[in-house]
């Protein structure tokens, strides 16, 4: 057990979890459940970033310390901060995902808002591009760095 805190989930599990949540993203989009799809899609990004944190810290399991939804914090601890800045399209897409995902104020979380105008089909399509585009997609890039 590492860093004096209770371990939570392993790197391999985080990678698998990310792929499973991506499948859920597609199923929910097909079922027109766009808000939930977006939620799980960005959650997949979070899982992959956490897998990278494990890799950077050479840990088999993610310490509780890193149980954060903050994509920037996870990026900083993943060791990919400089590398992503050499990929402006990927970095920009990660910022867009973060802008939808994270609260501007920690106590008021945008992830719990269910608004069909703000989180509809168009938004889900954009999220798919930001995550999975062969060039600039955040998940495409994160997978290539594992």
């Amino acid at each position, binding site marked *: 057990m590492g860093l004096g805190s209770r371990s939570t989930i392993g790197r391999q599990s985080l990678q698998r979890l990310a792929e499973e949540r991506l499948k859920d993203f597609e199923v929910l989009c097909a079922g027109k459940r766009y808000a939930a799809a977006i939620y799980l899609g960005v959650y997949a990004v979070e899982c992959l970033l956490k897998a990278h944190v494990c890799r950077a810290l050479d840990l088999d399991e993610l310490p509780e310390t890193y149980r954060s939804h903050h994509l920037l914090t996870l990026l900083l601890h993943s060791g990919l901060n400089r590398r992503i800045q050499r990929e402006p399209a990927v970095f920009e897409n990660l*910022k867009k995902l973060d*802008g939808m995902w994270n609260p501007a104020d920690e106590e*008021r979380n945008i992830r719990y*808002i269910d608004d069909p*105008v703000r989180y*509809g089909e*168009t*938004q889900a399509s954009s999220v798919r591009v930001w995550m999975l585009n062969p060039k600039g997609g955040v998940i495409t890039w994160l997978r290539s760095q594992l």
Partner: protein
Amino acid sequence: MASQPTVDPDLDQVCQALKGMFRSPDDCRVEVFHSSGPYLRAIVVSDEFENEGAASRQDRVWEHLKKSALKPDLLTRLFGVHPYTWKEFREEFQET
């Protein structure tokens, strides 16, 4: 002598760049603040986001910033822009 509030020039530059995306800058509110390490975040409030989805807002914000005169290093440091309409902002921040 009363002390003047200190204006962080980096925050102010990002604030001005974000205000530049609106037709009516006087009707918007932009707050730029420090995040982890050297990074910055921003809350942007304007009714020009009305009937616009979350993804489209993000696209518009970042397209504008890329074309703005904002220095590349500041653009890199800006991580996370959170756009709201005034109604959404009041609901989420319970501001009366």
